[in-house]
């Protein structure tokens, strides 16, 4: 009984920080409908700032006031982020906000690196709470007990704020009915800024409060990101009691998981999330999002048509030029080109469902990594030749997409995005923790192409054929009746359904098709590298694809190719510098705010304005 209770107490103590951070994220989403991916960064900043202030303020009083100071400071940073980055894009689709907050993550990572250095910081122990207390013979850290005692106060304070104050009334009104706030005559931007302050402050407090347990390091932002999203999604986005229940649930589950089934703690968390969402798609205490639809940004999308003769000629010339690369460039240039073609195919497959289908998936890496792992497993365990893997791995990925799509297509908007993220994380954690089969963190190696294709030049041509072949298939699908049905379902589901189109089925087929094409890209990837690691399934991989599509221009067919090439080249170039994240982050934020139509969209518009191309040639 003793160990059991001790475990349970540890779980409760861990829930304190998790709840603080998650409640901030939930509040921000509830009021502003922004999914703030930079929330983990606020948490990290709370830890670093708290650490620094604790060095200056001695004693117990210093310790606790440092936590408060850290919270307030991070709250102010949240206000700055809100005013500079998010205010211009409140009315934009989710994707814009995702990309912008991702830019903020990069910027904060480097600013933290510049300020505090790369060393992990060991958190100071809380003065007066250093030892342990024995409960039923088991040692329980005093600080854990303090955290357990504090949590109800935090919950009470938040409850008081939300139910008893004017800010709280507004927050609840905004969470439940967006139109009502405007009707109340409230200054909306003031409310949003206030909520951002509160939400960021809660994250900062959480970061500072966990210092004695975890310290501060530069990986904290992404490490907590997955957990707080799980908590917020399980609890129901926008619901504080939901976040509390889910934080306790996840924390306790984690502690027992570590103890009794250490190989599957991560899987467990995502399985719980998937199960909750399948039963209650809007979380335990969340409510169905009715309106949820965001308008298009800028001008409406232009109708598009297949390339005419001139366009085809240009594409042919470009492809031929690229095909001469082995004669001109170095081996390094060929490898870079292979990488770029592969991400182009990956980005194009995401673009297909995201842009034509209006389905913003946050978990497309599941299919890229899924295809790669399917191929690797076939080669490793069945001795399958490369040729067979190229046929079967995309098909297997297609089946994976059928399973994931079956659950996700029911939802729309942010909820669709979150559930796809959950499933891709579930797949990642499976691969990560099922080490006997997948090699876990060590990945799978020696997955080489067949002998005839192992030469870099040959593999380059193979990649060109398969990669551009896949892109052409995707492009053609966009111009086919099926692609039109997909756009019709996005443009006006009501009209589509009233003219015989089963919009959900069309989207389901498109999701499967895009998944299989991402799987093809993953298959190319694994043979080009000869190895595969769980990183290819991570959130970051899904975000990469989203940023590529966005950078290139969501509304153009050329967008994903331009964006993928641009981001790959930029990363290749920028990573030579120490603070490349800062530069890339600022660049991403600038594109979101200044040129939301992306590189391809903006240049097409300029070209049309300057008379270089006709308007109807815009692709």
């Amino acid at each position, binding site marked *: 009984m003793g160990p059991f209770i001790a475990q349970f107490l540890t779980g409760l103590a861990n829930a304190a920080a998790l709840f603080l951070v998650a409640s901030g994220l939930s509040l921000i989403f509830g009021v502003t409908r922004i999914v703030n991916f930079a929330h983990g960064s606020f948490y990290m900043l709370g830890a670093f700032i708290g650490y620094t202030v604790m060095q200056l303020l001695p004693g117990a009083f210093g310790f606790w006031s440092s936590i408060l100071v850290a919270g307030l400071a991070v709250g102010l940073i949240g206000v700055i982020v809100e005013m500079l980055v998010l205010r211009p894009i409140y009315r934009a689709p989710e994707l814009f906000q995702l990309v912008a907050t991702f830019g903020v993550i990069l910027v904060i990572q480097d600013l933290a690196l510049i300020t505090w250095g790369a060393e992990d910081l060991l958190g100071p122990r809380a003065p007066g709470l250093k030892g342990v207390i024995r409960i039923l013979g088991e040692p329980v850290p005093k600080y854990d007990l303090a955290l357990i005692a504090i949590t109800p106060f935090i919950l009470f304070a938040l409850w008081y704020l939300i139910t008893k104050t004017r800010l709280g009334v507004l927050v609840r009104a905004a969470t439940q009915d967006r139109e009502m706030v405007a009707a109340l005559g409230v200054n909306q931007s003031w409310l949003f800024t206030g909520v951002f302050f509160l939400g960021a402050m809660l994250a900062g407090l959480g970061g500072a409060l966990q210092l004695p347990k975890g310290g501060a390091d530069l990986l904290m932002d992404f490490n907590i990101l997955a957990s707080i999203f799980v908590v917020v999604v399980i609890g129901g986005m926008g619901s504080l009691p939901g976040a509390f229940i889910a934080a306790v649930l996840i924390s306790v589950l984690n502690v027992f998981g570590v103890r009794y089934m250490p190989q599957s703690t991560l899987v467990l968390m995502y399985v719980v999330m998937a199960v909750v969402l399948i039963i209650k798609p809007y979380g335990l205490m969340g409510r169905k999002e009715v309106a949820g639809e965001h308008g298009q940004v800028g001008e409406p999308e232009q*109708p598009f048509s297949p390339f005419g003769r001139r366009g085809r000629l240009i594409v042919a010339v470009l492809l031929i030029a690229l095909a001469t690369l082995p004669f001109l460039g170095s081996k390094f240039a060929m490898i870079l080109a292979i990488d770029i073609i592969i991400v182009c195919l990956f980005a194009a497959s995401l673009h297909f469902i995201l842009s034509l289908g209006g389905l913003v998936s946050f978990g497309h890496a599941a299919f890229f990594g899924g295809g790669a792992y399917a191929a690797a497993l076939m080669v490793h365990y069945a001795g399958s030749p490369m040729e067979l893997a190229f046929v079967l791995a995309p098909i297997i990925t297609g089946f994976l997409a059928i399973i994931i799509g079956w659950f996700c297509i029911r939802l729309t908007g942010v909820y669709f995005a979150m559930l796809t993220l959950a499933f891709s994380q579930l797949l990642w954690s499976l691969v990560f923790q099922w080490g006997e089969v997948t090699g876990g963190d060590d990945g799978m190696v020696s997955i080489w192409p067949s002998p005839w294709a192992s030469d870099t030049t040959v593999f380059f041509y193979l990649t060109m054929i398969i990669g551009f072949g896949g892109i052409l298939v995707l492009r053609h699908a966009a111009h086919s*009746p099926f692609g039109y049905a997909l756009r*019709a379902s996005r443009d006006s589901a009501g009209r589509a359904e009233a003219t015989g189109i089963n919009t959900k089925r069309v989207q389901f087929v498109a999701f499967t098709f895009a998944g299989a094409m991402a799987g093809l890209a993953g298959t190319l990837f694994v043979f080009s590298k000869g190895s595969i690691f769980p990183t290819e399934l991570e959130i970051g991989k899904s975000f990469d694809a989203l940023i590529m599509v966005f950078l290139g221009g969501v509304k153009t067919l050329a967008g994903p190719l331009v964006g993928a090439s641009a981001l790959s080249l930029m990363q290749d170039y920028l990573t030579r510098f120490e603070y490349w994240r800062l530069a890339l982050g600022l660049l991403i934020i600038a594109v979101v705010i200044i040129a939301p139509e992306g590189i391809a969209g903006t240049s097409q518009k300029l070209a049309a304005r300057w008379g270089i191309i006709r308007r109807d040639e815009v692709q």
Partner: protein
Amino acid sequence: MTSVLEVKELSKSFGGNHAVNNVSFAVGAGELLALIGPNGAGKTTCFNMLMGQLAPDAGEVLLDGENLVGLPPRAIWRKGVGRTFQITATYPSMTVVENVQMAIMSDKKRLFSFLPYARNLYREEAVTLLDLVGMAEQADRAAAILAYGDLKRLELAIALAHKPRLLLMDEPTAGMAPSERIKLMQLTADIVADKGISVLFTEHDMDVVFAHAHRVMVLNRGEIIANGSVDEVRDDPLVREVYLGGGTVFADKEESENA
């Protein structure tokens, strides 16, 4: 006259609000039937139940004797019912002609074709339909940049694409200039007379209704309070009371409500 559509004791309430209450009527073959009533009377709700967008609380909707209740809109469409919306619903990212082609592709069950270029499929048929509503010259413009009146005409062309037996038109002329309204309704009347399509339509503009409807029904607070010829309804004292008396007030130009 045989009836194409028969509606029996249809009801729907939102919370305690009886939006449509025990409504029964029939649409005859080739008939142009108007459903009028003040804002919030329940006209759009009624249409939503006929087309399957809303499930009725009670009642039956029979198309040539076959019950439609419980079917989704797409199935009802395939049975030969077309609909235009009070707030136009078209595909803004496509051209005008592609909007019509989309409906024809759906009718021909080509939605899951991967091979052909959609823009070449059924283009002639689509242009013929556009010509019918006077939109052929605008075939290759983007639907997103059309004037509102043209969007209404495009919707009509889309609704005709699968050769429907019955057309449901929710305020087909809302948002148009008065002269244009008469013209569009005249056009609609000619087309449906030519093709033998039955039409149920709602309308705010009484000039349009009295000029074209074969029969008029008046809905008020979810209940039908009058049903008869144009003259009968015009002279009905109850109807006059609902519209606050006087023939002139019939020309209620209010269009601010939503579908």
